[in-house]
């Protein structure tokens, strides 16, 4: 699994860049499998850290996406809306999902570093019936 060091991570498996660009982690896309549909709140919507940013559908499951930071959605990646499987191919690049203009940039420092998130993801990968 890849967790770039220049990103911050939420324990809800989202990454975020300093400029507010966000998406799902490599762990998430591998864990969920092929992403069939992505639905994101429209640009201009205010989102709160830990609350719903949108939803993704995989196989027969709908999973909600939780905003890693609070702010206002400034952009949604139309490309992943049209072709969600891009997220599986390139979760940190072309597969970005939205850009959030942060209302409280200090929230970034509360998020996990690459190595901290790696431990969270690893904990979800072991000792579980459903893995």
């Amino acid at each position, binding site marked *: 699994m890849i967790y770039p060091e220049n990103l911050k991570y939420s324990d809800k498996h989202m990454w975020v860049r300093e400029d507010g660009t966000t998406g799902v982690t490599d762990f998430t896309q591998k864990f969920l*499998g092929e992403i069939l549909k992505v639905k994101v709140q429209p640009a201009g919507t205010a989102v709160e850290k830990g609350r719903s940013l949108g939803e993704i559908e995989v196989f027969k499951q709908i999973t909600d996406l939780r905003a890693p930071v609070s702010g206002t959605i400034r952009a949604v990646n139309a490309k992943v809306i049209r072709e969600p499987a891009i997220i599986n191919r390139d979760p940190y690049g072309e597969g970005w999902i939205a850009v959030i203009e942060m209302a409280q940039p200090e929230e970034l420092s509360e998020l996990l570093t690459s190595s901290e998130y790696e431990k969270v993801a690893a904990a979800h990968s072991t000792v579980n019936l459903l893995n």
Partner: protein
Amino acid sequence: MRSVAAEDHSTRQPRRVRLVPIQESRTHNPRLNIDREARYMKTVEEPSFRVWSSSDSVVLGKFLDAGCEVHLARARELDIPVLRRKSGGGAVYHDLGNLNYSIYFPGNLAPIGPVENSLRVLSFPIIKVLEHYRIPWSWLPPNNICVNGLKISGSAQARSGERFIHHGTLLVSTKLDRLNSLLKRNGRSKWVPVVNLSEFSQEATLDEVAAVMERLLRHTILYCEDDRILSISSGPEPDETGSPGEEAMSGKGTYQHQGSCS
């Protein structure tokens, strides 16, 4: 190679958690049943279940387009409502021959892991019912159970925050001609030929199958360590040491594929 954590759980006593039946007044109203699914998912405080059925209706997965999946003119002609649920998956025709079960997990015990695996593991109520009636089954990925190559059950899931619902269907004595006249074959739902359980066991009425399923869900025990489910037992009561009995299952355990539908 086993992880250190895996070593730990082999030596510690797992916590036993029972699935709790939802206390509700039974209804066959499809709108009410869908509302209840969403409500229970948001509110249960312990792993819970219910077994239910709805009168004639078509229920779509959250992101499906009704016009692509359903012969809407036929639905109007039959006065059948077309509704939408919170979970993913395809279009389902409901009537009083189609049995449904739902398992709700609160945040501290929501299953994690690959979706296809959890779909399979949490389909245990269907598998146990088929085994009760001595009907051989096979698993058709990602979410179907088949008998003689014909689909008899499907399932879907939704996760919201850390809350989780898994629900599945079992065709017991559904009006298959009506099902086939309502659901389109070229929609996003993968169309596969279907069959009723009553074809293999004539004494199996919906009420009787529902009773069998409820009984086994009431006897289901989740073996947990911290907030992880290690295994599920839906068979006879395990021994007093708390060790899972022979019926214990896991994603890698008892329930192996038994071939696939063609």
